[in-house]
């Protein structure tokens, strides 16, 4: 059964051709977001938010619809927000899901001359008067709402100047939400503006965390959230500019208490370019590429190099670092040179013979402890990269390459890899990438990697044909979402359809 989730479409089935399109559009409201929501890396469902009515008292009504993983409606309701009297538009800017609760964040931006304009000048924060509402999905009830910045009482010009912060939310499984407080750039930053606090689902504060780094005047500290789960929150703190002192630490917090479990300075032998870092099974995994050592730098800064060629020439291989959380020790610091990739003609800087430099897209850890890295080779052109080959590298538990597979693909502007997700029944992983056919039409390729047999197979699906064009999107585990748009709606009797297709796989 196909789902047509556009509410515009739903209404249009009730209206006839004669109804004004303006009325149709207005009735359906303005779409703010249609987002998948994940629960612990699994798809819970989807949420759609629309901006409905704005009345003369600046009350703004937003409507939410929560859908299950099959697009069946779970619940719907309204959220009322207040808009400031300045020339502003209050909009949704973020949605965070945690344990059956949705947190909606709203803010305003100045709207003038038919577009958004900066509110404070170049480089300054544009959004202001940030608010939140928390929905309990099970009971379909808003259980908390308010203004983030406690100094803001009313949305007016007087309070506008006090609104110095912006807020980012992260889900904390089993606990509630993690809120990061940031300040706008410029001026005296220090670390006051790098505050984290956790709330429960009713938005009551549970704990607060601030870095204890002592900074000089005009030095800014940047703290990024790298990963989080129901036990730990992994942060990285480093100094932005203004001080020659090199601060770069992994900071691990306890999710439930906010207690700093350790602060581990990050040191290394080489210059690193991180691809990803994540928490798993009591460890911190970090991987990426490593380059020739640069004094005073640990992580790569591409802007130091005039051309990509110069920058790539310093590349030496891939690295993996593992930190044991319990002992707060670096237990693995592995560097794999390009020459160690089997059956691959590649030079010491990662240039594959006839195919160009390698660009690493994804590294996934498999249940048996091995790793799969997906990479593409490219040639740097004047204004774009021409990607011409796809590779997978299988590495053992110690991150030693054991198998290389090459895939013949067409040359494309831009990389091919899009996303990956688990196969049905956790039998493996599917990697989605786009390629072209001989006729230069777009084609979806699904590369299945099977955990048990370590076999790789590719299924192709044309994305354009005589009758339709297709777009794909991530769906529940083992499935892919397909939106098909018909070129001749009169013949088909419909404009588009959405379906969820289970990925084709072999049962092992």
């Amino acid at each position: 059964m196909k789902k047509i989730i556009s509410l515009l479409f739903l209404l249009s089935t009730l209206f006839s051709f004669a109804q004004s399109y303006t009325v149709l559009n207005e009735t359906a409201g303005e779409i703010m977001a249609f987002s998948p929501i994940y629960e612990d890396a699994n798809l819970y469902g989807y949420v759609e938010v629309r901006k409905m009515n704005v009345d003369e008292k600046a009350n703004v009504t937003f409507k939410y619809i929560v859908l299950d993983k099959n697009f069946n409606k779970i619940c719907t309701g309204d959220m009322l927000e207040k808009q400031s009297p300045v020339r502003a538009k209050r909009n949704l800017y973020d949605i965070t899901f945690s344990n059956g609760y949705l947190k909606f964040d709203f803010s305003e931006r100045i709207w003038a001359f038919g577009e958004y304009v900066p509110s404070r000048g170049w480089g300054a924060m544009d959004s202001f008067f940030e608010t939140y509402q928390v929905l309990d999905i099970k009971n379909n009830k808003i259980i908390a709402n308010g203004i983030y910045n406690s100094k803001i009482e009313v949305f007016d010009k007087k309070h506008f100047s006090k609104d110095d912060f912006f807020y980012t939310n992260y889900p904390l499984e089993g606990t509630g939400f993690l809120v990061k407080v940031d300040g706008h750039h410029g001026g005296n930053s220090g670390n006051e503006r790098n505050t984290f606090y956790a709330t429960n689902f009713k938005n009551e504060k549970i704990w607060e965390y601030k870095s204890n780094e002592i900074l000089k005047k005009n030095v800014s500290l940047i703290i990024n959230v790298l990963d989080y789960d129901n036990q730990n929150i992994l942060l990285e703190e480093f100094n932005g500019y203004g001080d020659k002192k090199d601060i770069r630490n992994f900071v691990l917090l306890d999710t439930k208490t906010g207690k700093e479990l350790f602060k581990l300075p990050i040191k290394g032998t080489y210059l690193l370019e991180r691809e990803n870092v994540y928490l798993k099974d009591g460890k911190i995994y970090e991987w990426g590429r490593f380059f020739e050592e640069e004094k005073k730098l640990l992580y790569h800064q591409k802007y130091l190099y005039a051309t990509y060629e110069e920058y790539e020439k310093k590349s030496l291989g891939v690295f993996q670092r593992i930190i044991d959380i319990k002992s707060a020790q670096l237990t693995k610091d592995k560097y794999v040179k390009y020459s160690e990739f089997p059956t691959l003609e590649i030079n010491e800087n990662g240039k594959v013979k006839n195919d160009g430099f390698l660009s690493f897209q994804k590294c996934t850890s498999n249940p048996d402890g091995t790793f799969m890295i997906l990479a593409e080779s490219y040639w740097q052109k004047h204004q774009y990269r021409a990607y011409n080959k796809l590779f997978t590298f299988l590495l053992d538990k110690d991150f030693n390459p054991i198998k290389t597979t090459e895939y013949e693909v067409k040359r494309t502007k831009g990389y091919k890899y899009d996303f990956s997700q688990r196969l049905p029944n956790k039998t493996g992983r599917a990697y989605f990438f786009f390629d072209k056919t001989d006729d230069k039409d777009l084609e979806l390729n699904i590369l299945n990697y099977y955990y048990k047999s370590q076999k790789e197979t590719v299924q192709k699906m044309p994305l354009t044909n005589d009758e339709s064009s297709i777009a794909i999107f991530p769906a529940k585990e083992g499935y892919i979402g397909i939106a098909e748009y018909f070129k001749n709606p009169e013949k088909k009797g419909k404009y588009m359809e959405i379906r969820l297709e289970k990925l084709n796989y072999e049962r092992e």
Partner: protein
Amino acid sequence: MRLPFIAFVFFLYSFSYSQTYKPFDTVSVENRKVFLNEYEIRHKQKLKEVKKAFSGKIREQIEKAYISQFEDISRATKYKELYFDANMQSYLQNILLEITLSNPILQNQNIRVYFSRNTNPNAFSIGDGTVVVNTELLRYIDDEAELSFVICHEIAHFILNHRDSSIQEYVIKQNGDEVKKAEKDIKKSKFNKQSKSEKLAQATIYSKKYRSRTQEFQADSLGLAYFKKMKYNNIASIKLLKNLSETDIELDSLPQKSYPKYFTTKNQKFLKEWLVSEDYSKYNYSKEQFFKWNVDSLKTHPDCEQRIARIKPEVTDNKKNYSIDKAFFDELKKRIAFEQVFNYYYMEEYGQSLYETLKLREKASNDKFLIQMTTLNLEALAKAKKELKYNNYIPLINPKEQTKSQQYFFNFMSNLTLTEIQNLADDYKSI
């Protein structure tokens, strides 16, 4: 793309030496051509009338509505949805003759009646004198008298000119000053744009649906008037409406214990992995409408109870037991379950067709026709799975709208891999 019908019929006739069900034939190229030609003539005549009676934007929009309907019906006819089987046509013609003889006022109205393969339990009047009864409806009605009342009801829609009045009144209203003023006001508004639009949309839709429900009452009333002049027991009108109220209830189910029987073949053993079902227990589904509109106001048809209440004072149980051709109707009823299995397949609803096939196999497990339908549906599903179009035929689980039996079947089918479906199809083919 539709399976070549001739190939399928040939496939079936090659088994004709055995007792196996043969679907009604719709090959009738000539009859279909004649129908389409005549339909086009009537359609063009209607457009001429519209051109004479209206002008400007209103004429344009009315024409568009008629053209859209014409294209839909023509497409359905070209795809052989309408039956032109001689026996079925003869039967319907006899009922129609009985209606017109009993109601002389209808004699020169150029009415025609057809059965259709469409799998919705419904009947409709095109508006030009053509009445279509979907054979799926036959599953829910008990006798010829109810079928005749259905036809009388649809004829009443035609006589009362409901199609034309619906289209024309709606277009005229939408282009009227009141609506235009409201739309202008909405466009100019700085505030409350959405709520004003919703109010206007609601008023428009409620009005349209109200008109539709009113028309249903009118068709019931006039249809009953025609029906009462016939020799049937007119209590059948109430019985029909009661039966219609149950068309969304699944008539039977497929027992879980039967699955191993149907899905174990020579090269494919039954796997316990097929029985794993998705968990929906964490979802708490609300019944609220998106726009919080009145559900009753959105109905095109009144509740059957209301319809019964309206006609009941006019209905008497005259204890008659008349029918024109009881044997043919009974034969139709007997065949309909098998016919619908084929119709679902023909209409490319392969998942539903397979489901209905397996339910029938509970009573006739080794029936050759049903085994053939199992094969064909599995082949079609395997092809769809390969092309990532499986969801077109095997719907996703919807705990709110599907019965437990349906959910079990759809869940089961979604657990089969491409290789497994192909194995099953190949093994069934070799039976």
